[in-house]
């Protein structure tokens, strides 16, 4: 049987050829316009939630926020520490998440996975560097990042798609380390409680001043069919911080000295309190995990722009011992 027995009807239907159409530009423009609009709406939603959360803080998750201000000998505030307990942060996060549509939640999860991936690659590259060297890593921006970057002003010469990592030089004694950082500060070879200098690393500011050839890295990423590409760059000579591990048979105590930054910091510590280290005000944070406490003591040394900290688990050093160690370090000129 004839597959199409309606030839005359068909002929009539096609009597006039159908015009050609090209709606590609219109459709693409409509999609782009809608996507931009939706992104702005989502941003507004989140912004509004945070603002409302802050405004009605007394009845919300931020009800218990505590803050410690550290002042110098002139009475000037040099450091602020605000406490946001982990449980409160999780509650806040849940509240925000519930307000998001399943699509936005999926996007958040996707971004979290991306951050994890970037972190892993960053660590791998850093581990592969020689001590005392730096690398600039180019990351291909996502469409979303590309849009966000339009609204961000970057400080220094930092390129939004470039991340700099460095591998610090590790010193095995204060004697070896002193020539490097001795002009900035001094640390003892042994601290209270019989803890001896085990190893210390010196970190420099990430070198965002160096003029990286971004186009070359982009091309390399394309060639290697990867989301990133990296190249070695000179290490900055601007000191950032040093971290020293001291050890006894009980375990390790960590001492850090860094160039203080203006403002302050947040903490998820369970308890925060102000203590005195000589004439210095200091913030003592206590974190409790599975019934065990750990201490973290921070202060800005009067007359300097150096932020010191001592960290130890309670089983290694008690709260009093941590304070004694801090006093010993603070007294050294």
């Amino acid at each position, binding site marked *: *049987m*004839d*597959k*199409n*027995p*309606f*030839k*005359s*009807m*068909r002929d*009539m*239907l*096609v*009597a*006039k050829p*159908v*015009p*050609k*159409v*090209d*709606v*590609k530009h*219109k*459709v*693409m423009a*409509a*999609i*782009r316009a*809608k*996507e931009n609009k939706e992104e702005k709406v989502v941003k507004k939603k989140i912004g509004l939630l945070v603002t409302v959360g802050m405004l009605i803080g007394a009845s919300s998750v931020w009800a218990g926020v505590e803050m410690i201000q550290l002042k110098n000998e002139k009475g000037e505030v040099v450091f602020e520490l605000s406490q946001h307990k982990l449980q409160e942060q999780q509650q806040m996060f849940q509240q925000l998440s519930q307000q998001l549509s399943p699509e936005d939640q999926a996007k958040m999860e996707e971004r979290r996975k991306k951050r994890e991936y970037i972190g892993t690659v960053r660590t791998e590259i850093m581990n592969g560097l020689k001590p005392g060297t730096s690398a600039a890593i180019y990351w291909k921006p*996502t*469409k979303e990042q590309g849009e966000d970057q339009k609204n961000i002003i970057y400080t220094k010469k930092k390129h939004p798609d470039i991340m700099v990592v460095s591998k610090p030089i590790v010193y095995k004694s204060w004697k070896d380390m002193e020539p490097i950082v001795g002009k900035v500060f001094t640390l003892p070879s042994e601290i209270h409680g019989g803890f001896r200098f085990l190893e210390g690393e010196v970190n420099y500011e990430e070198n965002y001043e160096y003029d990286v050839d971004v186009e070359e890295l982009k091309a390399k990423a394309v060639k290697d069919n990867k989301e990133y590409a990296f190249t070695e760059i000179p290490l900055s000579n601007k000191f950032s911080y040093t971290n020293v591990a001291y050890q006894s048979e009980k375990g390790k105590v960590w001492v850090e000295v860094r160039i203080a930054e203006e403002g302050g910091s947040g903490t998820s510590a369970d308890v925060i309190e102000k203590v005195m280290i000589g004439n210095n005000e200091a913030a003592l944070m206590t974190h409790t995990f599975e019934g065990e406490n750990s201490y973290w003591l921070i202060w800005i040394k009067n007359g300097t722009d150096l932020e010191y900290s001592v960290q130890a688990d309670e089983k290694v050093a008690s709260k009093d011992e941590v304070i004694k160690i801090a006093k010993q370090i603070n007294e050294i000129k």
Partner: protein
Amino acid sequence: MEKKEIELLLQAIKNGSLEQFEIIIDYYQQPIFTYCYHMLSHHHEAEMAVQEVLLHAYEHLEQYTTALSFSTWLYRIAHNYCANELKRRKLNRWLPFLYKQDHGGIVKEHIDRPNREEHLERIWNRLAAEERSLVFWRVLEEKEYEEIAELLDKPPEVLHKQFERILKKCKRYLPTMEGVAANGQKSV
């Protein structure tokens, strides 16, 4: 375009590669326009329809599964759009005051219609959206009932009977139509 190729494109689009959607538009815009053009008998409205169909497809791409071919999925969207449009026109005829704002007046259905012969036009205007789709796919596109069944989400045998009823209707206006008995009962 191969099914595999389309699937890869769609996956890339779902992963954020918007540019790939241009290839989809290039490939499907003319067939979808042709369908809408016959359904709506109006050039400008058919152009609007194809834009809406493609935009809707992009926005709901996550809902598309390979259980249907992408082309079938697009035609389903197009059919729903045209059916709504025809329904709106019908209402417009009865309740013009409600729809005046949309188009600045009553839609003039026949202004830009394809140049069909007058008697065909009479038939066409008497067909419901689903009937128009059925005729378009069966007569113009020469699709099998099984294919049309997927497009209209109805069993093939139901469509077969429906098509016979349409033929009877047509017979009254097209007495010389080939392949149909005078009583319109011949199976096709």
